[in-house]
């Protein structure tokens, strides 16, 4: 492809080298160069598809895909399609790409038709694209679609070979059966040996029947008393532990209606927590994002292309995106909202009791606490769960240990100065500023 360009280059360098040697040669070369260059250029099929791809990705891909209708039409074979179906040549495309609204204003029938068909969304003008650039982009769109066949066969072949098609449970079951048979075998052997001994009149040593151990235990009153006390203490401790975990939900991991992976969104793609939970900055609640926030990205991202695990396949993730489309009423084929929506019944994980007041904005915006402090390593959670116990003891503990953030906060600076003098400390903790008062959280 680049060969022809290289030839130009060679010719150009030759011409530079020969500059001093021969005047005639120079004139001759100059002549051929300028004669041939425009000639080859206008008929050039030598275009750079790689450059076309990167240009396409930076400029066009926001609204166009090759095989799928988006904000604008699918662009595979656009040049041929326009030429064959509409009789529009490349020149039309050039003017359209550089300034589409002018073409529409000029009353061009196809331009107006496509403008109306795509909800009158105007295509951005690209005056900066040169002929060669557009040529490259068109070459990229003219490529045939590559169907990935190899991938499928590899994945199906590799899956069963991993564990021979046997799950761990089956293997464990076989092992326990074997041990059971072994035990029976040993018992049988011992029995037969005993029988032999009896038949051969060998006297087996018989143990004297002594007092059974539990009877001896019951007879020893001191031992009974000690163990009774021990049992009571242990069960009291166990009972205490059991009552303490009542009402707390640490590790609570409900099944959500849509499998939303925080690992993919916050971990792999590094989307800030506040992007979706935007109300955490400004209000009491860190709300559940409404589905339009999902659609900010998922209007474009209609399939999953990240890493897959044995448990979660690409088909699985794609299905979850389809669930979102169904709920929000987005018709991915037609690229428009149908207006038929369903609420997604998310299961709330972090539930404070009604009698405790908690405000997200106070912690996120004023105190500047990271979300991970309370919610744990969310960016690693494939399935979201409650990381902290969210008990009162846990709150109080943090209030005792954390210093008040006074930097860039005039509201606190005066009271902080006075109180730190009173307590004789450099830095006030939240508790010293009243963070333990009952009425702060319970009213």
């Amino acid at each position: 492809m680049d060969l022809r360009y290289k030839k130009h280059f060679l010719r150009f360098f030759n011409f530079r080298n020969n500059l001093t040697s021969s005047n005639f040669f120079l004139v001759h070369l100059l002549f051929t160069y300028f004669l041939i260059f425009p000639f080859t250029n206008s008929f050039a099929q030598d275009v750079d598809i790689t450059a076309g791809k990167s240009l396409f990705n930076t400029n066009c891909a926001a609204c166009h895909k090759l095989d799928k209708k988006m904000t604008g039409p699918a662009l595979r074979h656009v040049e041929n399609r326009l030429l064959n179906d509409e009789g529009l040549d490349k020149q039309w495309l050039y003017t359209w790409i550089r300034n589409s609204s002018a073409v529409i204003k000029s009353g061009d029938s196809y331009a107006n038709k496509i403008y109306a068909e795509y909800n009158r969304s105007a295509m951005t003008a690209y005056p900066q694209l040169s002929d060669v650039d557009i040529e490259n982009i068109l070459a990229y769109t003219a490529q045939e679609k590559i169907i990935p066949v190899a991938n499928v066969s590899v994945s199906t072949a590799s899956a069963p070979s991993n564990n021979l098609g046997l799950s761990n449970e089956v293997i464990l079951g076989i092992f326990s059966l074997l041990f059971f048979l072994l035990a029976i075998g040993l018992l049988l052997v011992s029995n037969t040996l005993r029988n032999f001994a009896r038949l051969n009149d060998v006297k087996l040593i018989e143990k004297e029947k002594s007092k059974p151990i539990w009877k001896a235990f019951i007879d020893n009153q001191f031992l009974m008393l000690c163990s009774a006390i021990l049992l009571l203490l242990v069960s009291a401790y166990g009972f205490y532990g059991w009552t303490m975990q009542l009402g707390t939900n640490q590790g609570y991991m409900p099944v959500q209606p849509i499998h939303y992976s925080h690992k993919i969104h916050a971990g792999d793609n590094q989307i800030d927590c506040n992007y979706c939970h935007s109300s955490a900055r400004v209000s009491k609640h860190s709300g559940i994002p409404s589905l339009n926030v999902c659609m900010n990205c998922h209007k474009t991202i209609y399939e999953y292309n990240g890493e897959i695990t044995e448990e979660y396949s690409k088909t699985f993730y794609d299905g979850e995106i389809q669930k979102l489309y169904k709920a929000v009423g987005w018709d991915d084929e037609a690229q428009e909202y149908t207006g038929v929506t369903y609420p997604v019944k998310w299961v709330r994980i972090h539930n404070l009791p009604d009698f405790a007041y908690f405000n997200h904005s106070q912690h996120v915006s004023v105190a500047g606490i990271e979300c991970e402090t309370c919610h744990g390593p969310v960016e690693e959670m494939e399935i979201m769960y409650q990381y902290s116990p969210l008990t009162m003891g846990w709150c109080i503990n943090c209030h005792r240990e954390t210093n008040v953030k006074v930097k860039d906060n005039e509201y606190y600076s005066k009271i902080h100065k006075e109180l730190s003098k009173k307590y004789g400390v450099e830095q006030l903790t939240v508790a010293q500023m009243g963070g333990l008062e009952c009425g702060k959280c319970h009213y």
Partner: protein
Amino acid sequence: MKIVYKILIIIIALFFSSCKNNEYPNYEYMPNMYESIGYDTYEENTLFENSQAALNPIEGTIPRGYSLYQYEDSNSGYELAKNNLQNPLRDDEINMTKAKELYDIYCGVCHGNKGDGQGILMKREKILGIPSYLDQGRDITEGSVYHVIYYGRNTMGSHANQLNENERWLVTSYVMKLKSDLKK
């Protein structure tokens, strides 16, 4: 006598083993003190459409603290906003640190923290075709930036519910700053 002991031991063991299943919430001491009597924001409520208690504001009303945005969501509205809409914030009202913070959260993922269109989602090829703020064909102005944050445009969605009016203008000023930085 012996049987009574055995049964007791089994009962105690069952009592403590409390097979906790993480898919379901734990027991509570006094549920009527834990659960709100009033309606919760996202609660199911059969009174409303789709049993959804969370509703949009009534059409034609403006919530407290909001103001009317006069440009409509269309190409002509975009052009009008692009040419006419001005940033109402005075220079001393613009806190660039805050603006940068907001920009990095809401815009940086796609547009890149420098505004060159090289955000993390672009680099990972999740979303393609994000223009630099210097893009000639768009030639963004304060008005057009605010308008696009408010309504969204083409593939970009509206960010009006994530940023309030003041924050939108802060981000707008920061975008214009990035644009002038890119020119250098």
